[in-house]
């Protein structure tokens, strides 16, 4: 067999292997996976809970506006290696217990999120990005470029607004009943976080995050602070 023929045959044999790998990576039906594996814990259709009973029964974040909330690259990465974002889970009241110094996280009640393979994660993230409820709220937010020091961001977040009562700004510093802030920059879209701070109730009427009537200027600062923290956190990994 000539050298040329050998090379042709080798390439031809490689094509089905490549095609099979591609199918495994890209052939997954994200919408079907969402329905089959995610819908039992996540609301894919809305609306958000309208009563406390409905709020308490929620097992994971609502996803019917995921395409307006998350960054797709973060979804792809997190779905393959999921780590807790809410230290006390959801609903937080189901995952605390009285301790000697006060309420503690009842860690044994927290369940790990299932991990997906790369192909599934990519497909599910793409399907989630199509879930775009509340476009109207997103359209109202204009994110302005600007500089902010970390110390000023922390001043606004902690001293002026008291957000640290419920959110962590470092892996072991801050409150626990809300999602951690230090990964929010890579996790969330800027317009979403601006809109959610402006009115958590517009997105989730019964949520245990209050509307603090944050000024436009401070919303912009909080958006920048969140990005600063995420860059620092990524750098330290």
């Amino acid at each position, binding site marked *: 067999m000539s050298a040329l023929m050998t090379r042709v045959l080798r390439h031809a044999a490689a094509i089905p292997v490549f095609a099979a790998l591609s199918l495994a990576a890209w052939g997954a039906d994200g919408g079907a996976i969402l329905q089959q594996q995610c819908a039992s814990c996540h609301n894919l259709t809305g609306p958000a809970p309208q*009563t*406390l009973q409905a*709020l*308490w029964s929620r097992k994971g974040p609502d996803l019917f506006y995921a395409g307006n909330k998350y960054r797709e690259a973060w979804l792809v990465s997190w779905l393959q290696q999921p780590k807790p974002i809410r230290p*006390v889970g959801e609903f*937080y*009241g189901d995952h*605390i217990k*009285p301790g000697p*110094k*006060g*309420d*503690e*996280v009842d860690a044994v009640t927290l369940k790990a999120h299932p991990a997906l393979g790369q192909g599934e994660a990519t497909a599910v993230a793409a399907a989630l990005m199509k879930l775009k409820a509340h476009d109207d709220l997103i359209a109202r937010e204009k994110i302005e470029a600007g500089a902010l020091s970390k110390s000023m961001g922390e001043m606004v977040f902690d*001293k*002026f*607004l*008291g957000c*640290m*009562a*419920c959110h962590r700004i470092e892996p072991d*510093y*801050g*409150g*626990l*009943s809300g999602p951690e802030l230090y990964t929010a920059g890579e996790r969330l879209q800027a317009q979403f976080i601006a809109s959610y701070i402006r*009115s958590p*109730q517009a997105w989730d009427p*019964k949520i*245990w995050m*209050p*509307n*603090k*009537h944050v000024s436009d200027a401070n919303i912009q600062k909080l958006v920048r602070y969140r990005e600063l923290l995420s860059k620092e956190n990524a750098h330290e990994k």
Partner: protein
Amino acid sequence: MRNNRMVLLAVLAAVAGASSAAETAADNYKTYCVQCHGSQGNGKGVNIRDMSVQPRDHTDAKAMSGRTDDELFKVIKEGGLSIDKSVLMPPWGDTLSDGEIRDMVQHLRGLCKCRYGS
């Protein structure tokens, strides 16, 4: 005809009212207050470790009897800064109705087993 229309409006109003029925103060407390004031109402919530100002112990009759019902209503609705207290106590006016806040004030009186000035 006019009477029928009035009856229909009354029925619709009743249905609308039922769909946005107030939650009980105990349920609202469990959802919004416990995260800082604790499941026992003693100010020892799961969030408190790194707080610069510790939450009020709602079972402390001496401290709670120093506040009028109107002050408690105001601090729940408008937040700690409205009565010159900590920013860490947020305003709940966009979460709870005025009626729910009034019910919450009475719930707090039950926790402290106290009244203003007593």
